[in-house]
C-alpha cells in the first residue's frame, strides 16, 4: 500500500504545481486593474500609482509568481488587497459555511439516492420503479438555483418556517446554523440525488443479472437477501465514481447556491473576489478548490480498493 500512496501523492503534488502556474497566468492576463477597481472613476492618476505600488502590482510577473509559490509552501496565502486581512482568515471563516453545506448536501443526496435506487431496482419494471424514475428524471432536469428559489417561496415566504437566506453563524448555536443551511443543502442535494438514484438503480440491476447472484438465489436466498448481501457492494463502485465526480459539481454549485441564499461561503467569496479583482484571494481559492477535487479523486481511488479487493495494489489479475 505504501508505494501506491507515495506514487499517488507525488502525482497529486505535480497536479497542484501545474494548477498553480495555470491559475497564476490566467489571472494575470485577465483584463482589469485591481487598483482602478478600488478607487473608481474620480481617482487621480498619481493616487492610482500610489495604490498600485502599495499592492505590489508594479513588480515583474515571474518575481511575483515565485514569491507567491514560496509563500504558499510556507503556508502563507497572502493578504487580501480589498479586505486587508490575511487570506487564510477569510478562507477559514468561509470554509465553516461551505464545508458543512457540501457535506450536508452529499449526506442528503446519498441518503436519499441509494435506498431509492435500490428499491427501484428491486421493483424493476413495476409501477413504483416507473414512478420513482419519472421523478428522478424531473430532478435531473431541474437546475438547483431554480429549485432554490422555489424552496424559498414555499418554506420562507409562504410558510415562514425557515429563513430565506443568510447564515446565523455557528456562535448562534448548532441548531440555528444548521437550519440556515437546510434549504441550500436540499437545493444542492435533490438534483444530485436524482442522478445518483438512476446510477444506483442501473448498477444494481446489472449486478442482479450476474451469475453469482443467480447462484445465490439458487442456494435459496430471497431476492432481497441476495441484493443486500451480495449485489449491493459490487453495485457501489459506479456509484462512488459518480459521487466523486459530483463533488466537483457540488463545489461549482455552491457558488450559485450561496449567492441565491446569500451565504457567506467560499463560493461567494470567489465570486466577489473576481469582481473586485482581489487576485490573491482568487488564486488561493481556485488552488484550494483544485486541491479539493484532486484529493477527492484520490479518496475515490482508495475507496475502490476498499470496495473491491481485486483493485487493491499488489493484487495480480490473471
Amino acid at each position, binding site marked *: 500500500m505504501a508505494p501506491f500512496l507515495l506514487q499517488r501523492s507525488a502525482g497529486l503534488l505535480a497536479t497542484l504545481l501545474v494548477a498553480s502556474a495555470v491559475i497564476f497566468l490566467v489571472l494575470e492576463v485577465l483584463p482589469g486593474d485591481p487598483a482602478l477597481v478600488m478607487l473608481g472613476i474620480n481617482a487621480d492618476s498619481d493616487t492610482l500609482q500610489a495604490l498600485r505600488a502599495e499592492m505590489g502590482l508594479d513588480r515583474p510577473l515571474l518575481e511575483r509568481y515565485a514569491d507567491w509559490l514560496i509563500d504558499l509552501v510556507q503556508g502563507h496565502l497572502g493578504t487580501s488587497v480589498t479586505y486587508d486581512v490575511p487570506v487564510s482568515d477569510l478562507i477559514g471563516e468561509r470554509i465553516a459555511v461551505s464545508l458543512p453545506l457540501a457535506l450536508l448536501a452529499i449526506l442528503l443526496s446519498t441518503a436519499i439516492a441509494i435506498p431509492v435506487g435500490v428499491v427501484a431496482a428491486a421493483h424493476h419494471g413495476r409501477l413504483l420503479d416507473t414512478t420513482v424514475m419519472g421523478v428522478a428524471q424531473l430532478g435531473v432536469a431541474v437546475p438547483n438555483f431554480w429549485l432554490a428559489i422555489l424552496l424559498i417561496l414555499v418554506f420562507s*415566504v409562504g410558510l415562514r418556517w425557515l429563513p430565506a437566506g443568510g447564515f446565523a453563524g455557528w456562535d448562534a448555536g448548532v441548531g440555528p446554523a444548521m437550519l440556515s443551511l437546510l434549504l441550500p443543502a436540499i437545493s444542492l442535494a435533490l438534483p444530485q440525488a436524482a442522478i445518483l438514484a438512476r446510477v444506483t438503480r442501473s448498477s444494481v440491476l446489472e449486478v442482479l443479472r450476474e451469475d453469482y447472484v443467480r447462484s445465490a438465489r439458487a442456494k435459496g436466498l430471497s431476492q432481497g437477501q441476495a441484493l443486500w448481501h451480495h449485489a449491493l457492494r459490487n453495485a457501489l463502485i459506479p456509484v462512488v465514481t459518480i459521487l466523486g465526480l459530483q463533488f466537483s459539481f457540488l463545489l461549482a454549485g455552491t457558488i450559485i447556491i450561496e449567492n441565491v441564499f446569500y451565504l457567506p461561503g467560499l463560493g461567494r467569496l470567489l465570486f466577489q473576489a473576481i469582481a473586485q479583482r482581489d487576485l490573491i484571494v482568487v488564486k488561493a481559492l481556485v488552488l484550494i478548490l483544485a486541491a479539493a477535487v484532486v484529493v477527492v479523486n484520490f479518496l475515490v481511488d482508495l475507496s475502490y480498493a476498499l470496495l473491491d479487493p481485486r483493485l487493491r495494489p499488489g493484487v495480480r489479475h490473471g
Partner: protein
Amino acid sequence: MTIRFAGPMAILLIGLAVSAEAARTDLKLGMILEPPHLDPTAGAAAAIDEIVYANVFEGLTRITANGAVAPALAERWTVSDDGLIYTFTLRQGVTFHDGAAFDSSDVRFSFERAMAEGSVNAQKPLFAPIADIATPDTKTVVITLSRPTGGLPWNLAWGDAVIVDPASADDNKTRPNGTGPFRFDRWVKGDRVELTAYADYWGEPPTLRDVTIQFIPDPNAALAALLAGDIDAYPNIPAPEGLSVFEADPRYNVVIGATEGETILATNNARPPFDDVRVRRAIAHALDRQAIVDGAMFGYGTPIGSHFSPAHPDYVDLTGLYPHDPNTARALLADAGHADGFEATLKLPPPSYARRSGEIIAAQLARVGIEIELIPMEWAQWLEQVFRGTDYDLTIVSHTEPFDIGIYARDGYYFNYDNAEFDAVIAELTVTADADRRTDLLHQAQRKLAEDAVNGFLFQLAKHGVWNADLEGLWHNSPVQANDVTGVRWTR
C-alpha cells in the same frame, strides 16, 4: 464571543417580555454589494458610504436627506470677504468610539492625510483648493484656499472627507472608529455588518439601538428576504420589475426617489465618426428617451437633456432640444457623409440599467442606419478598457457623483470632449460665489453640453426602495450614496 452576545440578547428578550407594546429598536437593512472595506477615505466603493456615512463617521459638514449642506462636527463657519479663508468652529465634547477626544488636530490630520502624496483617497480633487490648514486652538480650524471655492462646505461633506483619529486611522478598513451615533460592532465578512448605538454620542441619540446591514447580492433573493421578514428595509433595489408585489401589499412602503445618477450614452468624441457633431446630434435625434425609461426601467426615471440633475435648483430642461425623429437623424447622418449608416460597438457594464438600455438603444440606432454590436463586460474590464483606456465607441453608465458637470472640463476624461468655451465656464464657476452668477454659469454649461451633444443624455436614475410600512426616517432620495439611519424609527 458567546458572553459578548448573551448581554444584548438577554436585554432584548427581557425588553420584549416586559412590554410587547414598545416599538422595536433594531433594524435589519439589506444591501446589494458588500464593501471591500469600511474606510470611506480610502476607496470609491459606494457600499462603504452606504454603511458608514453619517452613521459611523462624520465630517465637518454633512449632506442631509434633501441634499442640503448642514453643520456636523463643525458647529458653524465663517468665510472671509475674498472667499479664501474659512474659519470652522468645532463642537465640544465629541469623542471617537474608542474614547479618544476629538479636536482641531484631528481635522488637520484627516485633511493632510487625504491630500498627502501617496494618499489613496479616491476623491483627492475635493481637497485641491486647500493651501493651508491652521489650528489656532483646539476648537478652531482655519482653512486657507489657493482660489475661492464656493463649494468647500459641500466638498467637506463627502464621505471621503470624514474626520478620523490619528491613532486608529490605519485600522479603519476593518475596525472603523468614528464620531457618529453608531459604533462599529462586528463584520461577518460576506454576510453582514453590525452597528450599535454609541452611548457617548455628542448629539441627539438615535432611536435605534442595533442596526444590521445584510449583504444580499441577488435582488430576487433580497425581495424574498423582505417578504419572509428576514430584513426590514431594502433602500436601493436595482430590480424595479419586482416592485409590483410590494406596491399591492399594505405591509410595505414602496418609495421611488431620485438619485444623482445621470445615465448617459457616453460617446468617444475623439473617435471618428463621433468626432463629428452632426453624427452626435443624429444619435440624439435617434434616441427615444421615454421608450428607454419605459422599456429598460419599467417607467421609473426622468429623461434628461444634459448632464445635470433635474432636482437641482439650477436645472434647465433641455430634453426638447433634439426631439425623437429618425428622419432628421438620417438627414444629419447623410449630411455628415454616412448616408448608408455605419457600424459601431456599444460596451455595456454589468448593471441592469446599462444592459437593458443597451438593447433598446441598439434597436433605436438601427432604425437610422447605425448597426450596433453590443459588448457586455465586467466592471473591472470596463474601468480599464473604456474608462482609463478610452478604447470604445459608445457605452452606457450612470454618473452617480453629485454635481459632477465639471468632469467635462477635465483633460483626457473618457468622453474626450475638448471645448475651451466650456472649460472657461467651469473655471469661472469654481471661483464664483455670487448665487445669480453661478446660476447663469450653470445654465450656460448645461446648454453647451447639450448643443455639442457630447453624450446621449438618457435619464436620471431613480432610487427604488422598499421597507416595512412601520418604519420612518429612511431617505427617499439619494443626494449622496448613503443609508443614513440616524433618524430612523419604528412607529409601532
